[in-house]
């Protein structure tokens, strides 16, 4: 126990030099956790928003459906398999019928996807309750998102001509009324999309009982392949793979930033260690004269360096925890252009700090500090006590 006691004593005894190092290191500590927390928060926020508003517990898709190819939409529908219908009846699934259409706001032509969904569904975080469940009126109730509203210049209460083709390929058109403009961070349920009551869309297209895909509730028991009657299942992971890949790409930049911050802090530690070895040679000689072996002196100086990181961790905790907790509560206001990044981020980004993140950062800082502290102390291994006592290094 003598070495830890001495190391702590020496560290605290060094006064301002120690506290400057500790402050720089703690700053790196907090900035690394904050930046990684932003990334983790972004990942979590995007995933949660996508799962809540689009993915649910995964989709069963019609075999002909390809979400990335609008040309498949003509044939990408069919009667909902009985197992999935049963889930829908139990409120554990929401069938969605998708067709292509066109609207003519202010005389302009805008190509859209018309999506029929049960207004009473509660699986997706889409305010479908604004869509009147009953059909048969002349006007078609339509729910759109803010991005779509901006694109088309439409607002709640506006009327617009909507055109589509029915199952026989015949063009039909009717007046649609915008019942609500929803606010959502998930672009894929907003941009170029019109949400209408499912029963109404089926009636308009003469596709009774048809759907393009069925969204499962997160707690729904997934039917087997045979029960799905050839409908293909796309899991949450399938949906989120692209987003995760994008977040991963952004994390590379963040990792480089973290590495630079850590490197700057390590430079301070390295500098201190080199200076300590240079300035404290006589002290090393005295320690050896009093009975310290070279190994003990090396351990002492390495531990002093490592304790910088421990103290930095404590200091970082003292101001970092309240600061990061406040940051996690209030979030970070994102500029309007963030919407173009392709992430479902919303207006504010809320960082998330997991135990794993904090533990990994702590371990990283401790490990690098130990290595950086040890490298210059290796010189001590060649130090002769007599030379050290004279204030020289060998």
């Amino acid at each position, binding site marked *: 126990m003598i070495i830890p006691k001495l190391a702590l004593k020496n560290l605290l005894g060094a006064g301002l030099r120690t506290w400057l190092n500790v402050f720089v290191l703690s700053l790196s500590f907090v900035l690394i956790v904050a930046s990684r927390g932003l990334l983790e928060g972004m990942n979590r926020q995007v995933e949660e928003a996508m799962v809540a508003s689009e993915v649910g517990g995964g989709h069963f898709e019609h075999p002909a459906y390809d979400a990335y190819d609008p040309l498949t939409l003509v044939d990408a529908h069919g009667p909902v398999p009985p197992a999935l219908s049963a889930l829908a009846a139990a409120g554990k699934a929401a069938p969605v019928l998708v067709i292509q259409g066109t609207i003519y706001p202010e005389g302009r032509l805008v190509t859209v996807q018309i999506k029929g969904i049960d207004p009473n569904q509660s699986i997706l975080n889409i305010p479908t309750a604004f869509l009147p469940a009953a059909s048969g009126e002349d006007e078609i109730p339509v729910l759109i998102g803010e991005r779509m509203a901006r694109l088309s210049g439409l607002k709640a209460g506006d009327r617009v001509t909507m055109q589509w083709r029915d199952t026989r390929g015949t063009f039909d058109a009717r007046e649609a009324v915008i019942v609500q403009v929803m606010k959502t961070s998930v672009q894929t349920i907003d941009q170029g999309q019109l949400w209408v009551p499912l029963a109404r869309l089926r009636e308009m297209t003469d596709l009774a009982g048809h759907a393009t895909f069925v969204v499962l509730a997160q707690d729904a028991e997934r039917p087997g392949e045979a029960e799905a009657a050839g409908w293909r299942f796309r899991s949450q992971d399938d949906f989120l793979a692209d987003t995760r890949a994008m977040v991963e790409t952004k994390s590379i930049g963040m990792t480089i930033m973290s590495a630079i911050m850590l490197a700057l802090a390590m430079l301070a530690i390295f500098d201190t260690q080199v200076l300590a070895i240079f300035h404290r040679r006589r002290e090393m000689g005295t320690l050896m004269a009093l009975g310290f072996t070279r190994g003990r002196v090396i351990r002492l100086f390495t531990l002093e360096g490592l304790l910088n990181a421990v103290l930095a961790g404590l200091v970082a905790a003292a101001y970092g925890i309240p600061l990061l907790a406040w940051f996690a509560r209030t979030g970070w206001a994102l500029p309007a252009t963030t919407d173009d990044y392709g992430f479902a981020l919303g207006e504010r980004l809320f960082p998330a700090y997991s135990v794993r993140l904090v533990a990994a950062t702590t371990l990283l800082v401790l490990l690098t500090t130990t290595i950086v502290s040890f490298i210059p102390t290796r010189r001590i291994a060649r130090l002769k006590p*007599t030379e050290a006592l004279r204030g020289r290094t060998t």
Partner: protein
Amino acid sequence: MTDTPLILTKDLKKTYPMGLHRIEALAGVTLSFERGEFAGLVGPSGSGKTTLLNIIGSLDTPTDGSAVVMGQRIERLTHQEAARLRNRHIGFIFQTFNLLPVYTVYENVEFALLLLGLPAAERRRKVMAALDWVHLADRADSRPAQLSGGQSQRVAIARAIVKEPGIILADEPTANLDAENSHAILRTMERINREFGTTFIFATHDFKVMHYLRRTITLIDGRVDSDVPAGGGGEDRDRPGEQP
């Protein structure tokens, strides 16, 4: 007393590389020291005093010859064995005091006992006894920067004697002190030598120190030029500042 001397050097040689040449610091020194001696190595700068002291203190090893200290062959000791010998049996007093600056007086003195692994109560008792010896018990909580040169050297003496070593090696212990402080610490060392039988070996060219020595070994160019008793113990000599 046993037949084996406490310290025995035989034809001790030490050379150092100096550029393309080698400097011969010790050129065959044969000496022996018994328990309780109060001896000094004197001579001009570069005569080998500190080198000999360092080898006896197991801080350095000879190039040739042998040095046996408390039954241990210095040239054969590993780093660990040498460190253990220094820790248990040898106390050092340096010209520049070499106190550890971030520790208090108490902690500086306690340091050697920490390495010996003594229990806290025993350490406290020994440290306070050592500080009493050098009349610094009331400065136990001071830091070295708050002490005068004389007080710092007295702390160094306390640190050297606290573990009750058989040998204390003092390299120019009075070089940074004024006359009054020099005599004060020399009297303290002499008293320790008399009461505990601790062997003191000085490296010095300070005449004040030489007044106290009971054996004076003069080194010239790494060789023993003379080895004479100083006659009857230093306490009988006329020393300035002596208290009745």
